[in-house]
């Protein structure tokens, strides 16, 4: 069995917090997924919440049912048992249409310009510059050009955090706003630090804003076909590929959403972390073929 290397800490009497790694990496995320999956399968009495995150996870438990020390010991045992086994993931790839540089996020970012690092540029212009892209168009092509892993769902209901599936040197990194906005349009595509996000509901936010998707991702009324199972669409481990759309397509899709006929392109995929790490660009091309193949 492998050694336990994660850091374990109690969140008072009802939580164990486990930091797999201080920094973000796909390896840390996969290890957290493997441990939390193994824990869920055991159906341990007293465990009330199992929340995988980017490079950590959180478990909530009832200490009247399972003693805190026993809870932590079980998680340490699972870490040793899982070892490096969790490198394969049966998941799905989803195409998310994005209207980049749209009028709604642009209008919102102008209202909060005094909270931004660069009040004289848009979020896209600023992000393109700090990531050394020659133009906004080239930056958007990079953003939409490779897939993203959903590495955490949360903050608010159904909001995915996404980690770009490229070599670290190519990863988009941007600071968050100096002070968070009090408003973000629903379904904004955002980015902060090394993480992307899709804002599932309207509300406060500190990520740079790049565009908007017509596809709802959280719906308590579960109206569209892809909400059949649950009101939150995304799950940790999902793979997302953005596709650029224009205003006409955005309007057409929005009308389909309102009519209840809109659906997402979703394909099952068996993801291998080792194959991806060996050749990210080649592997991403295969993922694209799975998404658009017959």
């Amino acid at each position, binding site marked *: 069995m492998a050694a336990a290397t994660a850091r374990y800490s109690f969140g008072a009497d009802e939580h164990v917090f486990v930091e797999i790694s*201080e920094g973000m990496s796909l390896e840390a995320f996969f290890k957290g997924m493997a441990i939390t999956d193994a824990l869920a399968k055991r159906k341990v009495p007293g465990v009330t919440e199992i929340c995988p995150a980017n490079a950590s996870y959180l478990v909530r438990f009832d200490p009247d049912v399972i003693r805190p020390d026993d809870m932590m010991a079980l998680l340490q045992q699972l870490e040793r048992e899982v070892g490096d086994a969790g490198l394969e993931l049966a998941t799905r790839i989803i195409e998310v249409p994005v209207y980049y540089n749209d009028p709604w996020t642009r209008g919102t970012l102008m209202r909060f310009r005094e909270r931004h690092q660069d009040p004289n540029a848009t979020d896209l212009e600023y992000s393109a510059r700090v990531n050394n892209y020659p133009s906004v168009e080239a930056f958007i092509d990079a953003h939409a050009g490779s897939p993203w892993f959903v590495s955490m769902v949360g903050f608010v209901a159904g909001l995915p955090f996404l980690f770009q599936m490229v070599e670290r040197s190519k990863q988009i990194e941007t600071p968050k706003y100096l002070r968070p906005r009090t408003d973000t349009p629903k379904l904004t595509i955002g980015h902060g630090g090394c993480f992307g996000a899709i804002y599932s509901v309207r509300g406060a936010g500190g990520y740079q804003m790049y565009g908007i998707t017509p596809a709802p991702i959280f719906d308590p009324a579960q109206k569209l076909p892809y909400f059949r199972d649950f009101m939150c669409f995304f799950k940790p481990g999902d793979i997302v590929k953005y596709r650029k759309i224009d205003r006409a397509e955005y309007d057409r899709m929005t009308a389909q959403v309102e009519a209840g006929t809109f659906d997402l392109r979703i394909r099952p995929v068996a993801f291998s972390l080792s194959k991806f790490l060996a050749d990210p660009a080649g592997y991403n091309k295969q993922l694209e073929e799975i998404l658009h193949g017959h």
Partner: protein
Amino acid sequence: MAIEIIKPGLATTVQDAGRPGYYNVGIPLSGALDQYSFRCANLLVGNDENAAALECALLAPELSFDAPAIVAVAGSDATPKLNGAPAPRNEAFAVKAGDTLAFDFMRLGARLYIAVAGGIDVPSILGSRSTYGLGAFGGFQGRKLAPGDRLPIGIASPQAKAGRKLPADLATPLPKETELRVVPGLYFHRITDASAETFFADTWAVAPEADRIGYRYKQGRPLQWRERKQPFGAGSDPSNIVDAGYPYGSIQVPGGVEPIILHRDAVSGGGYAMIGTIISADMDKIAQMQPNYKARFVRVDMERALAARQDYRSLLDRLRTALT
């Protein structure tokens, strides 16, 4: 039968024992912030202690009833007025069709619970009738109440009767200064030894930004972070971490300036280091703190946290024995 909202108060919502099990997709526990007072109100009117009731923050609502009912009010100290005449707190009383229930201002405490025999009969979503405001679902149409809302009431139990009274020693304590017990941990190692001292030594006051999501505290000395090269993906501020799950009751200190304690409508995760967690037995106390009430954070270990949890359970058992 139904209750009609005449004036909604500041933030009145339908809440019950909460909605565990969906925090992994960002849907928080929700439910009454002060579970003890909420249970008092329900047991006084003969309800199941988890029945849905009204939670009122800082300014209570004005309601009218379209049929006779048994009602009880528990939690913060605001005198109920039934058709303008004082009605009891912590005691079940009868209302008639057409009666109006209003309240004086809250002298002490911040959350008042109004239970009606039969419970508030809104639809149960994912196993709970609690309102989750950010997600706009649960409770009454997923939001705080507004004038003209009509809340359906369930069928009262045969146990419902006027005059059932809470023994005085079981009433919710409503101090203006509170000790909140903390188990240090999570990212506690990120603050300096000096800041670890001042955090527990200083007196903190509740800031105006205090709601069901979180309670912000001010007036203590800012916290300093240990020097480090920030890990990949964590963000540039020393109070930033790679976005992680936030425990209920966890204390984050953005920029090291004002601690925020997450409560039952918590955002489920984010990128601010948490330096410890309020013990489960003290979460109700936070709900009764008005802006400017004072808190001291008291460092405890797991053993004391579990002992306090046992005391809280014993208190609930005494409450059930006294009222059933």
